[in-house]
């Protein structure tokens, strides 16, 4: 990073904080602070919806995933457009007319306070931990890339985000998200342009596609119905549909985005923006990863992209083995480049397989010598490309884009955590008739408190790979079940409060059992199982008791 790059990053972060605060009009009352007085245009809400979903992991992790496995991750999003259509027809008009602040308020109106509080509590626990992980994953990568300490990197993301979210409320979050999305899309498009330019200096674009395709990286669609496979057409279409219905329909961090829209129509349009744009945008990001792979066919890549343990490995008893692997890697990269240049498919694939084997051996040495069993290389591919191969100034833009994605995803989540805390618990159970000024003050306190909790979780989660996995699984424990309880409330008249409450608990228990006792069922299916169990058990209890 050169001074110009730092200038870009600092100028960008300062601009989003200042402009976020400038746009936070009418936030002196709870309605303005949490719902922007229901005044935002559809395109701003739509961009905010997309920015909240797109974390920095989407940029660093997805590109790395595409570098190693190709486009198949796109199938994860196949349920999203259909989910948006279903939500536009059902919960959007429903929540907007109900004039709720949180999705869980509806559960009290339909069932009872117990079901509302349980659902809101599940959201708070899951989202607070997830927010920590949302911050931890990019912070770990960026701290290595930039040479900062982890707490300093977490603070660089959190402090500006907490400041504009606390002072400006949902309006500051939404307008900041708009800018973040332009930076992210602009940055990714620029990266793709630079990659294409770099590749076509060595080989034609058609030949580049053939090289990527030969390694299976352009095989995006897998029509096999296999519960063991994480990403297939069916897991994305069915499991992904349930996940997206739950995330956009029952998760306060998304519901709150479209509750700020001017009308039912505008709230719908904001969701439909994602329905049209999300898959192409995700393809752009995945394509960057595939292009980075092709780029490194002709330019020497590092054996491992995550070099954080280099000094430890060099000082260990395996240093000679590691150095030997590096020499073998360099030779094999040259062999692969020659095979690629003369379009010798057999030699190219054989060499590529040997390179993957060398990388696996190197990863094992790093894990053995450092004890870092959760050693991750995938997330470092794209940041390494950015910082070593992109022109001065654009490096700053891309680093700003990664920071932007981290802040925009976490700002919306932080705002939603404060809303659920104040509306579903503080105002409902503890202080029922205080002034607007009082609620506004405690809302800001709640935002700061959750922000600090997220920072602490982020710093601790970063050092515990297993915790990150638990948090990711936790989301699937309750997402499907939460969807089930909303289905019971909205689509059936016979469901009772008792049925909804016990159905919700039963759904989570079954998903917990499936997750730990039947681990071969991939997590996207947990959302289907949870929703179905809640509806079946909830209806059975409602009818029989």
């Amino acid at each position, binding site marked *: 990073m050169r001074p110009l790059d730092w200038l870009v990053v600092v100028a960008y972060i300062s601009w989003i904080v200042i402009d976020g605060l400038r746009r936070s009009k009418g936030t002196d009352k709870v309605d303005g602070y949490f719902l922007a007085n*229901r005044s935002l245009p559809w395109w701003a809400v739509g961009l905010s919806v997309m920015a909240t979903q797109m974390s920095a992991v989407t940029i660093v992790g997805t590109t790395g995933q595409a570098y190693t496995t190709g*486009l198949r991750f*796109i199938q994860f999003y*196949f349920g999203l*457009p*259909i989910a*948006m*259509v279903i939500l*536009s*027809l059902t919960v959007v*008009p429903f929540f*907007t*007319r109900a004039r709720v602040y949180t999705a869980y308020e509806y559960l009290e109106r339909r069932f009872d306070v117990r079901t509302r509080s349980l659902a809101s509590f599940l959201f708070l626990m899951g989202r607070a931990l997830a927010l920590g992980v949302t911050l931890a994953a990019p912070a770990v990568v960026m701290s290595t890339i930039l040479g900062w300490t982890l707490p300093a990197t977490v603070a660089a993301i959190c402090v500006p985000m907490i400041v504009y979210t606390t002072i400006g409320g949902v309006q500051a979050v939404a307008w900041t998200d708009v800018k973040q999305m332009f930076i992210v899309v602009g940055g990714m498009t620029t990266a793709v342009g630079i990659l294409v330019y770099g590749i076509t200096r060595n080989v034609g674009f058609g030949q580049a*596609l*053939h090289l*990527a*395709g*030969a390694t*299976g990286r*352009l*095989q*995006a*669609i897998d029509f096999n119905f296999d519960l063991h496979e994480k990403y297939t*057409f069916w897991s994305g279409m069915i499991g992904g549909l349930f996940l997206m219905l739950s995330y956009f329909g029952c998760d306060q961090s998304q519901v709150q985005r479209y509750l700020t829209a*001017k*009308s*039912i*129509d*505008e709230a*719908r349009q904001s969701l*439909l923006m994602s*329905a*049209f744009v999300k*898959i*192409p945008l995700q*393809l752009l990001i995945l394509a960057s990863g595939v292009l980075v792979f092709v780029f490194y066919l002709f330019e020497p890549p590092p054996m491992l992209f995550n070099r954080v343990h280099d000094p430890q490995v060099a000082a260990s008893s395996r240093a000679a083995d590691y150095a030997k692997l590096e020499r073998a890697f360099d030779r094999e990269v040259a062999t692969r480049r020659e095979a690629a240049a003369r379009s010798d498919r057999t030699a190219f694939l054989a060499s590529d397989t040997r390179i993957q084997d060398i990388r696996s051996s190197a990863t094992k040495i790093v894990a053995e010598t450092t004890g870092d069993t959760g050693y991750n290389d995938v997330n470092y591919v794209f940041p390494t490309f950015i910082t070593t191969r992109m022109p001065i100034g654009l490096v700053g833009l891309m680093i700003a884009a990664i920071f932007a994605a981290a802040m925009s995803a976490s700002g919306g989540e932080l705002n939603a955590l404060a809303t659920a805390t104040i509306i579903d618990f503080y105002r409902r159970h503890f202080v029922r008739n205080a002034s607007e000024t009082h609620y506004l003050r405690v809302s800001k306190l709640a935002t700061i408190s959750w922000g600090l909790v997220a920072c602490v979780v982020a710093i601790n989660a970063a050092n515990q790979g297993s915790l990150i996995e638990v948090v990711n699984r936790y989301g699937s424990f309750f997402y499907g079940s939460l969807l089930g309880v909303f289905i019971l409330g909205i689509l059936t008249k016979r469901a009772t409060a008792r049925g909804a409450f016990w159905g919700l608990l039963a759904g989570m228990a079954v998903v917990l059992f499936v997750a730990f006792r039947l681990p071969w069922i991939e997590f996207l299916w947990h959302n289907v199982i949870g929703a179905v169990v809640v509806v079946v058990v909830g209806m059975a209890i409602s009818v029989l008791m």
Partner: protein
Amino acid sequence: MTQELERDTDMTPTYVGVVILEAAIIVVLWFLGRAFS
């Protein structure tokens, strides 16, 4: 304000557009995988 909030028009053509676009993307991706395998 209330009248504006209640604005609720039929968007069936947009929903159809969403489904058509998704189907087209899936077909293109499938062909891309086949053509460059």
